[in-house]
């Protein structure tokens, strides 16, 4: 896929001929320096933005053919999001935040039980009735992970999930995500500028000047598929 912002002389190629695939249960790190295009790539995968050219397939479906409403449903059911600033809704409690994607889905499943189970998994059961703006940054990020998992998505996309946390809390979040990959077989695509924080992961893709490369360092080989 390609992503170009602007037109004519002011056009910026944020992503150039990027193509790769992700296996189920994989923990994929997308690394790169600031402004390299890694968040843009995550937005394309997360269906929050559309590529200028190219296609994004998710569970075998060409998402570029979907309209806005279908994209919303797709995001809701197939994707989970964890943002740098947790991005919980401050008007809701922790539990309500975690339930929100399920409520948007309007399914009749036992939502509260699932949410409580997830809260236990991320170690937040005692804070579940606290307002989202009354918990610490690390707790908020754990709640955001739980929210990202509530609809059992195909992929959880995390954009600098530890970028706003101290090193101790960041380590807790990293270990939590890694344990979820192992325990639940959950696919994670994590954008970070600090790959060392994550230790061993299944795969790393490096973004530099809009190009994607397999591995930690640029080896002169653009990623085609894996």
């Amino acid at each position, binding site marked *: 896929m390609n992503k170009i912002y602007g037109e004519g002389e002011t056009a910026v190629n944020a992503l150039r001929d990027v193509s790769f695939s992700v296996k189920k249960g994989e923990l994929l790190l997308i690394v790169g320096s600031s402004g390299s295009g890694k968040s843009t790539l995550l*937005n394309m995968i*997360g269906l*929050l*933005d559309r590529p200028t050219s190219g296609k994004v397939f998710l569970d075998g479906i060409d998402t570029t053919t979907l309209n*806005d*409403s279908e994209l*919303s*449903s797709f*995001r*809701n*059911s197939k994707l989970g*999001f964890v*943002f740098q600033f947790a*991005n*919980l*809704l*401050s*008007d*809701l409690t922790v539990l*309500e935040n975690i*339930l*929100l*994607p399920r*409520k*948007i*889905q309007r399914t009749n499943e036992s939502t509260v039980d699932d949410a409580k189970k997830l809260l236990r998994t991320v170690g937040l059961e005692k804070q579940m009735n606290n307002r989202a703006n009354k918990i610490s940054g690390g707790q908020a990020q754990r709640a955001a992970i739980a*929210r990202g998992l509530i609809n059992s998505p195909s992929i959880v996309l995390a954009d600098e999930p530890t970028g706003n946390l101290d090193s101790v809390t960041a380590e807790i979040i990293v270990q939590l995500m890694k344990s979820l990959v192992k325990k639940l077989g959950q696919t994670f695509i994590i954008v970070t500028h600090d790959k060392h924080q994550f230790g061993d992961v299944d795969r790393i893709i490096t973004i530099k000047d809009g190009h994607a490369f397999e591995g930690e360092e640029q080896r002169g080989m653009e990623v085609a598929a894996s």
Partner: protein
Amino acid sequence: MDYRVHLAKRMLTNKKGSLIGAVLAVSIGILVIHVNFVIFQGLYDAIVRDLKDYRFGDILVTDEENYIDKADIALINWFERIPEVEAATARMDSSASINATNNGKKTEEFRIPVVGVDPLRDTHVSTIHNTVGDGQYVFARNSIVLGSRVARDLGDIQVGDDVKLKFVSRYGEDKLRRFIVTGITSSAGGQGLDGSAVVHIDTLRSLLGRTDETGAILVKLNDPTKAVEIKDLFLRSFPTDDFKAETIEESAEAQLSGFRSGIALINLIGYFGMMSSAFAIVTIQMMLVSSKTREIGIMRAIGAKRKDILIIFIVQGMIIGVIGAAAGTALGLAYTFYAKETKMEFQGSLALEVTYNWEKTIQTALTSFVLAIVASIYPAFRATRLLPVEAMRSV
């Protein structure tokens, strides 16, 4: 509860300042309409009440051409047989010049309206006798009650003074008669007989040479809503006579038509005030959308559709509308209650005739509610146009 309603409620209650501001905008709009209604409709109804009580009754019967030549007692008995009629009385109208001598100074006033009343029956139909603040109502053939303005113009005539009235009879003759002033009448708001003189009807008939005639029959009903029905029955019962029968609304049309236009204009201004409230809601809702941009982005990212965002902000408009309409209506009704219980008046003017108009109350509340929703549509639409990626960048 639907999550959109829950979220709309939470977003509003967590922005108490905005909620209070928007609710105040709606409720003040409603309150203004209630206050306008209490004052101007109350004034209008008070004038109608006083014109009815002092001059026209619920039904006024006159003759198309001149004076009624049928015996007044026959007509009064006809009316008083009807259960909905409380009482009826005869009156006679004319005019006269009035002379008075006060402290040796002679004063004369010309073309003063003179009303002839039946002292016994009139008190059952009209409340004009209650406006006699000084002295008492007409009780004898030679007694006269002067309107306060007439008494003043005649050099501050007092009860017990005598005045001389000059009439022109039906034959063109001047008829002079001396009366003793037994009372001075003065009505709040001046809808009474402040500019007239009141005498015994038989005296007036005699002076005018119209002993078997009557100027008008005033009818008081115990159920004023039956006025049209009884008027029509009367006209059908006397098809060959030249009677003219009018309800109070018809009799007082000349005095009331201009006032009605004024009330319509005031109401229009009130509704413009309500429109201003709607603009205030638009502004407040825009501020809410602006302050919730990041949240809108998050919701869109996790799967909320444009329609869901639209519903959240429309529901906020509905919440503002419901609370604002309830608060405004409560305040309006409280003001109406206060005005009614205290018989509100302004600087000694006539007491307002305050009524609860439930139809108008509901209509005003519903209009405000609908306006609050309509005012939320544009901000809600703006919220749906936010792109998730852009919205989430907002801090």
